[in-house]
């Protein structure tokens, strides 16, 4: 579900710098030092974080590192794991499969207990590394090819794009929008939406009038837009990187096509973000809508926000997916505690035991820890929602739909539950 | 005093000297011509004089002003103009623009001077808005000469101004050269066409194998058996 903005430019070797990531990293040094200087405690456990710090997708590292830092902060604040403090180290995969492997091997030098990242689809180039190197991985990203993942060490803490696509279709139909056009850029992630969205929308009785593949980085999209909109669709489904969206939204606004709902994915959801800024200001409060996985609104999410605020300050931007990485760290810590072992071979089997029902619901690390100490079977409901892994180690969450107000802040306009998604899947099966 | 004095010039490309120890003088109102067989170093000498090639020895003095170390682009403003043998006009620009460029080295307006020159070169006047690349070869040569005259030079160096021209046009060009000399300019011509050169020149230098083989007034040179020099019987006695 994470868009990987792919500019047309010299992706391979142009290194993008993330000021945000830099700050996090520098802060982490301080943290590590503090932990180490405590002295009497056992050696800290290393969390390996692998994100694209350079290249055109470098923004993702800002998201990821904020989540990791918050998770580590929260766990350490509650006393760590089995007496160990957590610490973390980074590696840069540059979102390039050819760079991912050396980055992974770099991480291994620090003997991480588990890993967070990389975002899909970079994970494809290291997915076979986790078992032999004895490292559990929690990754984020909607790539639909992972829907049937069988790798025992790999867990996905965000819902698949195929679910997100179904939710988008369900929401549109529930609003009575029966004709649609699809504008998805040519990146792997965006294109992952296309088949499930088409299938679901058709199953629910909708008609796709046009499916345009957007080539990122063009100076204008008027021709694509004019041909897509000839039959005056009721709704638009879209997903593209922010620079492309800025241009395409701008063009669509000029052509008068932003007087109907544009349902985008989570990328589009950030308040005051580039997407909202480029949308027609007079219709942005009615027509720009973004789907966001899970329900970052329950007790787990409140806890996350509190920890995030403690870690980065109350006013810090809460980056997308940060709660997923945070949840990953909490779940891993709980699994280790339950297994009473830091050996991944041992505790990997306990990941689903702490996150899935049945069990007593708990939504923060200290709370769950307290239950575990009492030998109570727990069911961690984290910042992302239920965090229940299915047999393929995928979570299957509901989706909230966000709208914007005129000052470009977000608010929830609808929520599609997992049950509703299941009903669509059932309908598709019938057809 | 001669307008231009070239003293003991040697030059060439890299270590290879093509001309050695050449000295010659050019006087105002006179046409001085350099002739010689192929490969004698005539064009090389002309290029050295105008600064396109660095002289390895010797000096070039125009009106008492030492130009030996002056960069090529400053030479025209010091009174020494040059017309190369080929590619001697800016083909993509009009006749008038070519002339304007010739006048750029002077500060003030060149308009009057241009009209003056166009009045003499009637052919060019008719074609003043035509691009130089579309002129005939002879007209191009004329234009090149006219451009060089824009600065009102003390010395003008012409490298084979009649090469490849029809006899009729050759005459026109020579008449023009004569008029330039009459107007007070010192003219140095590099020429293949020996007979015509001798007919039109005041003073002639014969270069052979990179050296100033023999020189003299028109009459003195006219008496020599130049054919033998040119066709290889170089043992012909110097006069």
């Amino acid at each position: 579900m994470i868009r990987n903005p792919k500019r047309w430019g010299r992706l391979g070797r142009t290194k993008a710098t993330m000021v945000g990531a830099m700050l996090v990293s520098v802060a982490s040094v301080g943290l590590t030092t503090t932990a180490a200087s405590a002295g009497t405690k056992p050696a800290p456990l290393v969390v390996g974080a692998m994100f694209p710090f350079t290249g055109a997708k470098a923004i993702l590292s800002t998201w990821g590192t904020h989540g990791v830092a918050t998770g580590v902060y929260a766990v350490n604040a509650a006393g760590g794991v089995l007496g160990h403090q957590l610490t973390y180290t980074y590696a840069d995969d540059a979102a390039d499969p050819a760079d991912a492997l050396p980055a992974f091997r770099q991480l291994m030098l620090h003997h991480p207990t588990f890993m967070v990242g990389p975002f899909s689809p970079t994970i494809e180039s290291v997915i076979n590394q986790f078992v032999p190197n004895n490292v559990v991985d929690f990754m984020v990203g909607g790539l639909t090819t992972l829907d049937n993942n069988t790798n025992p060490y790999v867990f996905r803490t965000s819902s698949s794009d195929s679910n997100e696509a179904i939710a988008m279709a369900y929401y549109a139909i529930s609003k009575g929008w029966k004709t649609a056009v699809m504008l998805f850029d040519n990146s792997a992630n965006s294109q992952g939406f296309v088949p499930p969205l088409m299938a679901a929308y058709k199953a629910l009785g909708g008609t796709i009038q046009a499916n345009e593949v957007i080539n990122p980085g063009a100076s204008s999209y008027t021709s694509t837009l004019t041909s897509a909109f000839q039959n005056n669709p009721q709704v638009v489904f879209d997903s593209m990187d922010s620079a492309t969206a800025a241009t395409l939204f701008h063009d669509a606004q000029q052509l008068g096509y932003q007087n109907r709902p544009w349902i985008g994915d989570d990328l589009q959801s950030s308040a005051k973000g580039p997407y909202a800024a480029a949308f027609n200001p007079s219709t942005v409060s009615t027509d720009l809508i973004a789907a966001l996985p899970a329900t970052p609104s329950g007790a787990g999410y409140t806890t996350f926000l509190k920890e995030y605020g403690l870690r980065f300050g109350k006013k810090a931007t809460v980056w997308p997916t940060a709660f997923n990485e945070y949840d990953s760290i909490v779940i891993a810590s709980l699994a280790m505690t339950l297994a009473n072992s830091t050996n991944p071979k041992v505790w990997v089997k306990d990941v689903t035991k702490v996150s899935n029902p049945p069990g007593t619901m708990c939504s923060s690390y200290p709370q769950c820890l307290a239950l575990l100490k009492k030998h109570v079977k727990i069911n961690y409901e984290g910042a992302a929602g239920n965090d229940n892994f299915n047999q393929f180690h995928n979570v299957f969450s509901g989706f909230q739909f966000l709208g914007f107000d005129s000052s470009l802040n977000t608010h929830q306009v609808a929520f599609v539950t997992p049950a509703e998604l299941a009903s669509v899947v059932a309908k598709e099966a019938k057809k | 005093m001669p307008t231009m004095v070239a003293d003991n010039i040697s030059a060439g490309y890299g270590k290879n000297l093509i001309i050695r120890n050449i000295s010659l003088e050019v006087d105002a109102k006179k046409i001085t011509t350099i002739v010689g067989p192929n490969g004698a170093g005539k064009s090389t000498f002309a290029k050295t004089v105008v600064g396109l090639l660095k002289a390895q020895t010797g000096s070039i003095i125009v009106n008492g002003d030492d130009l030996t170390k002056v960069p090529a682009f400053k030479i025209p403003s010091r009174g020494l103009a040059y017309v190369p043998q080929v590619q001697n006009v800016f083909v993509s620009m009009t006749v008038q623009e070519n002339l304007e460029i010739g006048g750029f080295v002077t500060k003030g307006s060149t308009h009057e001077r241009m009209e003056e020159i166009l009045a003499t070169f009637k052919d060019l006047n008719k074609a003043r808005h035509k691009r130089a690349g579309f002129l005939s070869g002879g007209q191009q040569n004329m234009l090149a000469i006219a451009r060089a005259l824009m600065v009102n030079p003390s010395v003008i160096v012409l490298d084979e101004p009649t090469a490849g021209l029809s006899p009729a046009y050759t005459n026109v060009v020579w008449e023009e050269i004569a008029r330039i000399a009459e107007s007070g300019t010192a003219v140095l011509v590099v020429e293949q066409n020996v007979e015509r050169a001798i007919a039109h020149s005041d003073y002639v230098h014969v270069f052979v194998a990179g050296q100033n083989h023999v020189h003299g007034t028109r009459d003195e040179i006219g008496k020599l058996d130049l054919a033998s020099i040119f066709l290889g019987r170089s043992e012909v006695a110097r006069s």
Partner: protein
Amino acid sequence: MSAFFLFVMTMVFYVIVFWIGSLGLDLVWSRTGIPIFAYYLYVAIGAYLTGLFSLPHVPLQNGVGNLFGLDMPGLLALPLAAVATGVIAMGIGAVFLRRLRTDYLAVVMVAVALVIWDFSQNDITLVSGNTGLTNIPLPLAGVLKININQWTYLYTGVALVWALALWWVMKTVSNSPTGRVFRAIRDDSVVAATIGKNVYRYQILSMGIGGFYAAIAGGFLAQLATSWNPSSWAPFEVFNVFTMVIVGGVGSNLGALVGAALLQVLFIQGPTYVASNYLHSPTFETLAAAAIGVLMWLSLWFRPQGAVPEKLKPTKWYLGREPQLAESINPDLTVEERA
């Protein structure tokens, strides 16, 4: 310790792969004089074909599939892909070398690479668009029942064997009369034609060999990462390989190794590691990438022959012994030299 060795092995693997890649570029650019700015395209074609050949055949369904799938053992897919790439490179050469002068050729080469890069992103039928190829099998791993770490050691060995073999081949080619013709074309293609060498044919041959080497490098990259997609490569990455060749030594087989090692270790992997682990700021990595440009300028200006210069072959090399003629110096020439 094993994590350390694995990391070192991975670096070694990359150095070996780019040595192979540099050898090919060295032949086409430094030894034949063709400004082959499309070289990274051949790396990519090699990677794609290696992946496609070793993945199973999937018939087209809704416009997606793998038409090239041969389910071939990776060890076999690699050379087969390289041969195919060599043929493609020769085809590209045959079209463009016929008509174009050096600078236009350079521009056209980049344009061709850009068109095909765009194609690789947009075309879903043949190369799966931006998703690219995933789960490219690890050659031998299945047969020997070894995990990916053991496989890394093993395959680094395989790559080294390949590299040594290709190094020997390149050495043999460049030392042969054919290599001499390549160099003659580089020095002056007009002269090469006047001494009876079919310049066009030799240039195409050089392109073909270069394409083969590029493709082997690409195939190894894809097999190592087990995946390949448009973000794995970009046409302009060719600049890194050019820098390896220029810094290492133009026209020198060992120079290619030096250049590949220098760039991979000191300018690409090293800065990434230092940036993530010590400086905690990717700025350093980015500046290292910028420094590659500066390195190339400095090298080209102060040491255009590179770290390991091209070796001249003395008479002894050809004869297998010192020549027996007495040293005779032409008196006329000494006159000449004095002049």
